[in-house]
């Protein structure tokens, strides 16, 4: 085992042990523990990034059994990128969570541990190199997420959490059924199994459908808008940044790595579902009456966008999609954090209350605008870079339909982003006086802004990430 591989253990055990420690500590001390743990595990990413850049992947095998039989962890470029999003979003959410889950509040008790359990689950899901490990990780993630959503004291949050739980369990069931079939057929659970003939289509479809529920792909997205929009602000930010994405990464992995030769027509069909999600999410986002709903539906639209990787399936497309994952994660987290502050001050996130906000909360308005630029994919931003790579891929494979669709996606994002911005900054009702609560500490706003800025700045210097992703996925280029 290389030294780098040992660090992988840290990625899982630091958050896990933090969760345990937090439970044991008295309520007033818990958040300190989480701050330490939440800041500690991202530090591991630095050496790991160097290792991945050097060796393309870091593998850790348990008990000396090499894949395909063994149960192991594997960190590749894609996982690393999402881990970075996770780390950055988590750090940025700290101040907001610190304020929101004050120890004096009853719901703050379980929050801190649950957060770390969620982090454990997400990290594990990104590292998992076998199908069952992935299942466990995703279950862990889901359960933690459900509990986190329910930390909000509103009835709506509870209902949303319930809905999420039920649907996610249904999804998990389908997934685990698929895993069972695979095991029965091949006797192995390893994700990447060179030499195994075409995966049983039934198993593939079952696993994919299950993951689609978790990744909130239209039309299986119905848990997401309510869950995200009713969850406490920092929870929504973290979930939007990584929870869906972890499932999506798993989806890609199964598609490209596990299924050696998935049926081509299925790729196109899934692409079409992605297209439908893209359009549907954007229109729905445009029509929403609440800011957090707009952001949530925007996620649905962008998950659809990321599904377009399947029909395009080239190294360039993979780079683009991976980069988009990064940019979108950062931007979404930033938006939810800004929205959280807005809810604190206005007491609501109804868009009717937005006019005049740019005066009271300029940093939040600016964050929304910057993140919006990335969502639209205007140059120069992370969103543009991802979009450009996907476009080039579409051009190279002659996928005209996808090309036009990708181009239009920016336009559709623009519709809802500019609607919000126009309302926030320029609406005539701007002089209306709301009942205002004291604004949260400035560091919360700055954290959100930093994420949004990062989402834009990575577009200016995307080389390190693109180089990392350059190796592509096994089985990517057919």
């Amino acid at each position, binding site marked *: 085992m290389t030294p780098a591989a040992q660090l992988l253990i840290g990625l899982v055990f630091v958050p896990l042990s933090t969760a345990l420690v937090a439970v044991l500590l008295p309520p007033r001390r818990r958040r300190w523990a989480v701050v330490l743990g939440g800041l500690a595990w991202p530090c591991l990413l630095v050496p790991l990034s160097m290792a991945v850049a050097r060796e393309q992947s870091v593998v850790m095998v348990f008990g000396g059994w090499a894949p395909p039989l063994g149960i192991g962890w594997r960190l590749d470029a894609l996982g690393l990128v999402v881990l970075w999003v996770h780390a950055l979003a988590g750090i940025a959410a700290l101040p907001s969570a610190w304020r929101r889950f004050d120890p004096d509040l009853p719901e703050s008790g379980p929050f801190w541990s649950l957060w770390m359990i969620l982090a454990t689950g997400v990290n594990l899901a990104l590292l998992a190199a076998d199908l069952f490990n992935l299942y466990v990780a995703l279950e862990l993630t889901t359960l933690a997420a459900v509990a986190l959503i329910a930390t909000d004291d509103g009835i709506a949050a509870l209902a949303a959490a319930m809905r999420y739980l039920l649907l996610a369990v*249904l999804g998990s069931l389908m997934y685990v059924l698929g895993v069972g079939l695979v095991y029965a057929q091949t006797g192995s659970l390893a994700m990447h199994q060179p030499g195994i003939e075409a995966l049983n*289509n039934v198993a593939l*479809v079952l696993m994919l*459908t299950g993951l*689609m529920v978790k990744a909130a792909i239209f039309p299986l997205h119905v848990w997401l808008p309510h869950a995200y929009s009713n969850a406490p602000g920092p929870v929504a930010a973290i979930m939007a940044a990584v929870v869906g994405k972890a499932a999506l990464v798993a989806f890609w992995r199964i598609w490209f790595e596990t299924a050696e030769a998935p049926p081509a027509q299925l790729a196109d*069909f899934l692409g079409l579902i992605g297209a439908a999600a893209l359009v*549907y999410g954007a*229109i729905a986002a445009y029509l929403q009456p609440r800011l957090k709903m707009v952001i949530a539906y925007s996620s649905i639209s962008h998950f659809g966008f990321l599904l377009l990787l399947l029909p395009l399936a080239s190294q360039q497309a993979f780079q683009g999609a991976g980069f988009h994952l990064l940019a979108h994660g950062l931007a979404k987290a930033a938006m939810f954090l800004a929205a959280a502050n807005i809810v604190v001050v206005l007491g609501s996130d109804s868009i009717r209350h937005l006019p005049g906000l740019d005066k009271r909360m300029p940093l939040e308005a600016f964050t929304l605008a910057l993140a919006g630029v990335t969502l639209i994919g205007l140059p120069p931003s992370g969103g543009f870079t991802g979009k450009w790579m996907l476009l080039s891929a579409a051009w190279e494979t002659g996928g005209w339909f996808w090309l036009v669709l990708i181009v239009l996606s920016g336009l559709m994002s623009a519709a809802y982003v500019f609607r919000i911005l126009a309302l926030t900054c320029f609406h005539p009702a701007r002089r209306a006086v709301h009942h205002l609560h004291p604004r949260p500490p400035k560091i919360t706003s700055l954290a959100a802004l930093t994420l949004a800025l990062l989402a834009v700045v990575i577009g200016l210097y995307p080389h390190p990430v693109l180089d990392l992703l350059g190796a592509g996925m096994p089985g990517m280029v057919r």
Partner: protein
Amino acid sequence: MSALVINLLPVLTPLIVAALLAFRGRPRAFAISAAPWMPLLLALPLLMGSRAELTIVLLDLRLGADAVAAPLSVLCAVAWGLAGWFAANRVEKDRILFWSGWLVSLAGISLALLAQDIAGFYSGYAMLSLASWLLIIHARTDEAWRAGRIYLVLALAGEMAAFAGLIAIVAAVGNIALGELATAVQLEPAWRWLILAGFAVKMGVVPLHVWLPLAHPVAPIPASAILSGVIVKAGLLGWLRLVPPGSEGAAAIGPILLVLGIVTAFAGVLIGLTQQRVKVVLAYSTISQMGLVLMAYAALLMAPDRAAVLLPWLGVMALHHGLNKASLFLACGCAPGRSRLRGLLVALPALAISAAPLTTGMLAKTGLKTALAEAGVAHGWTLALSLTSTATALLLWHFWRLVRSDSGYKTAHPAWVAMVLAGLVVPWIWVLVHGLDPHLLSGLWPATWPLALAAAIVVASVWLKRGLAPRWRPGLPAGDLVVWLEGAARLAGKGLTRLARAGAAPLPNLYPVHVRMTRTLLWMERKITALPVAGFLILGLGGLLWLVTRVS
């Protein structure tokens, strides 16, 4: 350097003085008192005869006085100057408007006269065209606005026609010196016709004359005097500059112009006889006289090798008509019917224009006949020319009857007297200076009989107690053709508006987020959010995916 100053002074000084008008108080008072003298500056380049080149101005501006511009420069200096004197005392309303129009027009015509390159000439000409509009609308009555509008439309259209033609030259050889034009370029006939037509607007050649009878009656008297006396001749200058005699293919169009000239000469008189307003009658007389000038120009085109002789004769015609017509216009403001002396002061220029023996008019006719002879035109034209004298005499008799009862200003203005004298003398001096043969004796009889004929007709009409004009008056309004043109323009305007509306139909709304769609989407979202539906969807989608894998 001094050449530069000399050539620039007549152009820049009026503009500077016009700019001073903008400042209340002393500068404005100074400007108004200095304005009338500005035309005299034109004498400077004329006398010095030097040339200047300003390589950084416009498109390489070249200035200088030459033989083509000389008679018009003299005319401009004298007639414009004297009219300015008249105006200094007589124009009291809206003086700033009047003098700014006056001065900018003067600067324009000075530039047009002095410019030796195409762009410079066109610049001066355009400035003149636009600024003289200010003189026409000076009264700002409805009538004046209408006259101004019609003038402006015709002037701009004419200018654009000329522009098209001269741009054709420029496209071929660049902004060359005007002197080289005759030899430098071979032009398609269509472009030449555009140039001719463009400048013909200013000349008032039928059927482009319609603005003259509308503009003259509404403009202030001194303005009418220079419009009719000087500015119309800017058109002639345009012809001489841009379609110079000797340019390839120009000789062929001479006969056509000749016919156009004689038609204009007679049409002007005939329509003028039906008019009842003094200055309208004079305007038609100008049109008629410009027909004669057109004939002289046509002859010049047909005999380019005789240009050295014919050009000064053309100058005589321009000077003669310009000064005498200006006198007649000034007479309109001096109640000429009040005394014998004043009657005489009207009669002198009127006789001159009718080409009475020994007047400058006889000189002009002689010049024209010489020109036609040089051009080798058949004898019949000479008779026609004589008859134009008869016609003009009748028209001016008509004018006299109208102006006699005119009671405007009671006092005569010395500028008028000076203008009459100038009309008597200056063309003669010109002839002497250029050593032209006036054909005094041989010209006497041809000059006498048409007038005698006219006198006979007048006497007969008086005896028959009928006016000169026929009892049946074709109800011709001033400006004749223009009435139909206005109707046509209105129709065209409507058509254009419709075209514009059709041509710029806005794009359909690209994002029809229709209400219905909104409702449907929200309804659908509510439906699939319900747990049973969602569960079914999950299973259904899984099944669908599986089905897709089964499709080969």
